């Protein structure tokens, strides 16, 4: 029960403080890794959410919830991820009788964005450092460099991540 409450609270918070699935990875790392999620599970969650079709935010919630506490965990996290945008939307609509730009809310999100960017930047460094045990051998550097090139040439992220994983299974033997 305690675990389910933790999951609910974490995903409620994450989805209140970020504007998309990709943007929420920074906060997810800080809230989950080391508490109830391992480094490997985090990389797996982000990888799968990018690979599989549909909303990344919901998939992150579903995967993390399921790994931590089974189907119940998955459903609780999913529910927590859905609540913030839906409730905000309903509140906005019923208060204003129609959807319109709420100035302070958009300014809050505008101020949030650079902070989210910085947070993700620091987390991506942490992921790289601890996911590789701190020693950057040539395989890690090659895969990182190759994926950067691939992204710059606008090869879709799901392919890049899948190929990087396959390369890993063969190269790290």
């Amino acid at each position, binding site marked *: 029960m305690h675990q389910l409450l933790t999951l609910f609270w974490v995903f409620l918070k994450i989805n209140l403080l970020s504007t998309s699935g990709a943007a929420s990875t920074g906060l997810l790392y800080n809230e989950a890794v080391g508490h109830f999620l391992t480094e*490997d599970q985090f990389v797996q969650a982000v990888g799968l959410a990018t690979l599989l079709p549909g909303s990344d935010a919901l998939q992150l919630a579903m995967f993390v919830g399921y790994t931590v506490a089974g189907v119940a965990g998955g459903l609780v996290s999913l529910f927590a991820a859905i609540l913030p945008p839906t409730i905000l939307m309903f509140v906005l609509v019923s208060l204003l009788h129609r959807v319109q730009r709420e100035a302070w809310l958009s300014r809050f999100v505008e101020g949030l964005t650079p902070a989210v960017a910085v947070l993700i930047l620091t987390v991506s460094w942490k992921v790289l450092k601890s996911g590789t045990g701190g020693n950057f051998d040539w395989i890690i550097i090659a895969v990182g460099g190759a994926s950067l090139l691939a992204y710059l040439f606008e090869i879709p992220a799901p392919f890049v991540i899948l190929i990087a994983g396959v390369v890993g299974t063969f190269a790290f033997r």
Partner: protein
Amino acid sequence: MNQPSRFQVWSRLFWIFLKVNLLTTAGPTSTGLLYKECVGKIMNESQFVEAVGFSNLIPGSEALKLAMFIGYSSGGMSGVLAALLGAIIPPTVIMLTVASILVRFQGQDWMKHFIKGMTPAIAVLMTLVAWQLFRVANPKSIKWRPVLLAVLSFAALYFGIPPQYVLIGAGVLGVILYSPRRY
């Protein structure tokens, strides 16, 4: 054009979002397909642009927000529910299936190597996402407010302030910094 019945609007919204969320992997990439499916059929161009604009205004999953705003402007509150349902079913069912299969391979060597291979690709992807988010705040040229917010957040994170407080602080600062008086 004769007025379609409410049921037709619901089932169409549900079907559109089911399809879009089965065929695209994230919120931002789905707007192209959504445009083709919606504009001229259930809403006009300016309604679509408005819906996409609103989806950047509130926090939460991008795909869900698109579903809600498009559902709302074409089918009211009941449209929201139909579109949400369509958007939620594909990712959750697929993810649950994959996760339940993956649990069996957890801890096996090839899985560890697969994850280690994905790590640099995901780290680079996250760095690029960070850059794109920062660009959203600076569409044409670098402006001082986003830079100030970024520097402050970096300092705060560096000194070990928990990220949730950094984010809330940045949002509150945004409300103050971006208030119209300053323009």
